[in-house]
């Protein structure tokens, strides 16, 4: 096990955990609806209750917490300007796929193009 294995192993863990976390929190917030509208019509308390009362949000947060600890390990083994863009941008690509499958978001040509550009950016950042 080299430092390379530790670094990329922890980055992969960050990607898997945070994709699960992002998809679940996004699902929860889609269920809650626009918090701006909720706040204006129902007030702060009702808005907080609607968001915090959603169990899906907390399952998502649990995954994000696991991703966060994986990130701490990664940061202790490598530079932030490698670890943070690499893990988050790979997460973005995993999220584009997961959003299309699980959230049924319309991932159009512009969004795939953005995914490819970010992937290329990651490859360069990781050089």
């Amino acid at each position, binding site marked *: 096990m080299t430092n390379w294995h530790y670094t990329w192993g922890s980055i992969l863990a960050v990607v898997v955990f945070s994709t699960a976390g*992002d*998809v679940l*929190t*996004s699902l929860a*917030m*889609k269920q*809650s*609806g*626009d*918090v*701006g*509208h*909720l706040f*204006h*019509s*129902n007030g702060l308390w*009702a808005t907080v209750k609607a*968001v915090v009362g959603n169990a899906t*949000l907390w399952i998502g947060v649990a995954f994000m917490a696991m991703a966060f*600890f994986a*990130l*701490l*390990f990664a*940061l*202790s*083994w490598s*530079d*932030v*300007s490698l670890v*943070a*863009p690499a893990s*988050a*941008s790979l*997460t*973005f690509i995993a*999220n*584009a796929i997961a*959003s*299309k499958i699980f*959230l*049924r*978001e*319309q*991932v159009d040509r*512009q*969004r795939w*193009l*953005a*995914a*490819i*550009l*970010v992937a*290329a*950016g*990651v*490859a*360069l*950042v*990781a*050089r």
Partner: protein
Amino acid sequence: MVLFGAFGDVALSRGMKSVGALSLSQWTQVIHAIFTPWVGAGIILLLAFFIAYLSALSFADLTYVLPATAVGYILMAVLAKFFLHENISPWRWAGIALIALGVGFVTAGPAKTATARGVQDHPPPRVGSA
């Protein structure tokens, strides 16, 4: 979101560098790391980021919000260079530029997927009397 995210990550990195490399056999060290000032400040900043992030997700798609916030990497690279004195190679700058270009593409499109019921940007019905 961009500001909280970038400053939070840089604070975390500074903290973890002073803690030193963690080993898997002594994984409990990571608990102690949380209570160091830089890591603690990083966590508070990232918490503020999370509230802004949840708000954005309530009115926009995940595939819109995530790339749109990638602007933070440009800010983070600048912070890492001047604050942590990390060396940013021309390749890394080129990568950061591509990420920025990707952000441009996604933000040019619509923020939310239209559903069978139409784009859900109507205010919810009022509760009680107006």
